[in-house]
């Protein structure tokens, strides 16, 4: 089928998803983008945010903390530093990720990452300092 694209979401410790997706909404470093089959080959880095995958069985949401995406015409791979399915996201997780970011915080890049992460948490209905 031409209107689906092989989508893989992998984190260093596990593979989270491998499905035939219709569209994938990716939180790119320069803004969200939606990739569908036939997308021009692109590599982008990610900011902390929510990744949405739409496939025949519905839509899955994942919280990603950063990493990069390798988008091709027939396959999309997202290599996330840390990724969690929506069900596993709670205030504790967000706190932990925030703490990790603050730990290494020394420039405005991490300040933006912290804000992005808080926004993502809020979007999923999880609030954390």
């Amino acid at each position, binding site marked *: 089928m031409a209107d689906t694209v092989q989508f893989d979401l992998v984190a*260093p410790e*596990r*593979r989270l998803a491998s499905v035939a997706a219709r569209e994938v909404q990716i939180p*790119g470093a320069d803004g969200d983008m939606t990739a569908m089959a036939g997308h021009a080959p*692109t*590599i*982008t880095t990610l900011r902390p945010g929510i990744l949405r995958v739409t496939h025949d069985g519905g839509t899955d949401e994942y919280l990603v903390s950063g990493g*990069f995406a*390798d988008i091709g015409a027939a396959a999309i791979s997202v290599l996330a530093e840390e990724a969690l399915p929506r069900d596993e996201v709670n205030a504790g997780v967000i706190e932990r990720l925030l703490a990790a970011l603050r730990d290494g915080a020394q420039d405005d890049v991490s300040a933006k990452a912290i804000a992005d992460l808080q926004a993502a948490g809020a979007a999923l209905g999880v609030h954390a300092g």
Partner: protein
Amino acid sequence: MPSLKDLKNRIASVTSTRKITKAMQMVAAAKLRRAQDAAMAARPYAERFEAVMGGLAAGAAGSDSAPRLLRGTGSAQVHLLVVMTGERGLCGGFNSTIARLARHRAEDLLAQGRTVKILTVGKKGRDALRRDLGDHFVGHVDLAAVRRMGYATAQDIARDVLSRFDAGEFDVATIFYNRFQSVISQIPTERQIIPATFEEGAGESTLFDYEPSEEAILADLLPRGVATAIFTALLENSASFYGAQMTAMDNATRNAGDMINRLTIQYNRSRQAAITKELIEIISGAEAL
């Protein structure tokens, strides 16, 4: 000739040793399975990462503006050797093979007049290298408190290595670890992580769009590459460790079994000899009357 009591004590002691080694073998087998699963789960990430990085690096390697993590510092004077071993022993040659490989490398480099710095990960490697190369130690990472080898551990080590690199402490970094081949075979491996090396021809020749820019992505990914390489090494190492321990404990259990058999035969012979001697004494005493 040891007395009957001595033999009995030795048999009891070897039997309890066998119980311990048997238990350790079983624990190692269970942990090995978990470590192997973890190593397997990490493989897709590492493979894709390598593929993308290979393509990116091939494009950027030639240019002068390439990040220092890829290009190097332009010199190869100071080498950092990251030696990864286990926290514990009783695992056959696991720790000593890595230590030997690292020691040879360090001696080669020193003979060439290079400066060698050593970062040890895991207690046993530190102990093994301290006598000959103790002066070159610059740091140590203790894994005793780490219950489950996670990416966070690798990130911590990577951050340490990268901050040393940024501070100009070394030019080339190499990691030493055991690659897991099978339960009975682990291959001591060295891999250069800074400047980054990638297998030739790994990247596809597709022209990519880059967001934000090729340089920015490369600068973002290279530190992650270091963490990924270290993570892979840690996982391979822990699988290798349990594999080696399982094999070593299996051998120990078998040896203990052989030893018990030998001691039991000796014990029975001595006992029989004692009985025969006593009988002879009784009979000759009776005949003398």
